[in-house]
């Protein structure tokens, strides 16, 4: 196990370096002189020259990449051009909201996806199965921004049950307040996160339900399930305890991948529901062409994603001995 962990951790280093290099390379994609592009139409030659110096654009690219990495190692992602603040501070201020949204969406999608997948597998070939898989197919084909609008129309505009936009107190803090006897902020936070999280979750729930269904069907045909049934264990216990535990293994690795999709989807959901997270920040950074900020955001997203993939791999190895012994 230790050998596997070390090997997997060592693999993370070139991966992280590659991600940083691609992120850095984004700057090279700018058509023309980045400094001139950044300063826009009123740029003076002196202004451009001084910004080129400030950005280090006159150095060869490998020196700039080296400098970029050296700064990153000290936690320095550069300064935002428009907000005149360190990129890392701006991102840290927004990160919590996005992680909260993505985590809640992930929990929802796993719960819904596993439930639908198992039910479809038990009722294989029947009406419930067909309905669940039709739902999954629609969920996969539905653009998240459209779903978000439909949910907003139904539950916020027409029914008026939930707020259309914004965020309450951070969930963790609201939980704390609820524990000391003030449940109002928690309710407020939950009603605000319901629609954005649900619209973000549905697509992943669809993917997960299909995976759980096929995986479950395979497991239910295995010998140990037949043995369990033969021993007279109740059918429900066989399915949920013996079957699901084994069927979830392949699903675990997909959940990591889904988290990446959720982070990306959060950009769209946050825009629609005015959720004050990284997604909204991304859109404003892009509209202003605030390059250091864009780079910082891309890097943050990619690093979170890479760390989650790493964690999932290690978890997987811990649960399934076949992986670490290979």
């Amino acid at each position, binding site marked *: 196990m230790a050998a596997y962990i070390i090997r997997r951790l060592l693999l993370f280093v070139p991966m992280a370096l*590659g*991600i940083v290099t691609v992120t850095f390379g984004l700057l090279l994609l700018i*058509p023309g002189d980045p400094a001139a592009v950044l300063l826009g139409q009123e740029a003076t030659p002196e202004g451009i020259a001084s910004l080129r110096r400030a950005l280090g654009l006159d150095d060869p690219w490998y020196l700039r990449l080296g400098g970029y990495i050296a700064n990153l190692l000290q936690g320095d992602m550069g300064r935002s051009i428009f907000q005149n603040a360190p990129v890392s501070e701006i991102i840290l201020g927004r990160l919590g909201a996005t992680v909260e949204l993505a985590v809640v969406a992930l929990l929802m999608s796993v719960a819904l996806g596993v439930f639908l997948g198992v039910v479809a597998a038990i009722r294989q070939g029947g009406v419930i199965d067909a309905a669940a898989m039709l739902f999954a197919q629609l969920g996969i084909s539905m653009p998240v921004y459209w779903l978000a*609008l439909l949910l907003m*129309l139904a539950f916020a*505009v027409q029914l008026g049950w939930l707020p259309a936009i914004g965020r309450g107190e951070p969930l963790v803090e609201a939980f704390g307040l609820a524990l000391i006897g003030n449940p109002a902020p928690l309710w407020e936070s939950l009603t605000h996160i319901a629609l954005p999280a649900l619209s973000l979750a549905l697509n992943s729930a669809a993917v997960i339900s299909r995976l759980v269904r096929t995986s479950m069907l395979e497991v239910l045909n295995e010998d140990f399930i037949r043995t369990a049934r033969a021993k007279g264990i109740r059918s429900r216990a066989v399915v949920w305890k013996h079957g699901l535990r084994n069927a979830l293994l392949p699903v675990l690795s997909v959940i990591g991948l889904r988290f990446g999709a959720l982070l990306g989807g959060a950009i769209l959901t946050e825009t629609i529901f005015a959720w004050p997270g990284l997604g909204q920040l991304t859109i404003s950074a892009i509209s202003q062409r605030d390059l250091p900020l864009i780079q910082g955001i891309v890097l943050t997203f*990619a690093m979170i*994603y890479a760390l989650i*993939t790493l964690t999932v791999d290690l978890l997987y190895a811990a649960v399934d001995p076949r992986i670490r012994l290979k």
Partner: protein
Amino acid sequence: MKKSLARRIGLPPVLRNASLLIGAALTLTIVGLAVFAPLVATHDLTQMDMTNRFSGPSAAHLLGTDNFGRDLWSRLVYGARISLSISLIAVTASALIGTVVGLVAGYFGGWVDMVLMRITDIFLGFPPLVLVLAIVAVMGPGLFNVALSLVVVSWTEYARVVRSTTLSLRERNYVQAAQALGASSPRILFREILPNSLGPITVLASLGLGTAIIWESALSFLGFGLPPPAPTWGWSLSYGTRFIRDEPWMSIISGAAIMVTVLGFNLLGDGLRDVLDPRRLTRGKG
């Protein structure tokens, strides 16, 4: 188990057999509408009618009108042209690049494989939409840049799948026979191995078209796709949200166009997978 193999895996029978048929029908219809857009469109795209804004579906306007009183049916039909052509360009380029990378990595193995697959992993390491947005942000909107950004995030999938099929095909007798006869590597790769990888590539491409349409529309929705007056679906959907409280129709119908198209490609892809790729079927991939 008494149940047949086909019943045990994949979608339930009703849906599975229907998958390919419905998918093909939907896709053909939408591609047909896009190709013959000038014939099926009932109105000029720019023809405004400010006295008739946000009208519902009627005989004069099949799907109603938008905020400028322009005919939504005609705009959606032309919008299909944009979405489909960007997606087709992106998917074709991704499939070409990914296939070559996968063939080379799988066939030559060793350090070539190592390097190519690490590069693939790095690109897989970004949440796709984030990378797409960043590229378009840096390079600016426009047909070519949007397609390029989609290629950057899509080729990896083809590379991984083609590599794994190449790895297994490499060991087959007929490939080894060709090697023994002195066939050159390119000949073996493109004449022996590639034809046998076309099944999975076709399936990926069909599913990929659906994904590309979702991303292209997402870019237009966020305002980074083709700029107006291009009648993109994403723009109509996004612009419609300004009137969402009173006149949600414009957004709803534009989104529906996106979904039906994506659904068509997904159903087609699932159906093709059952037909073309029985090996995956037996492993029961969802």
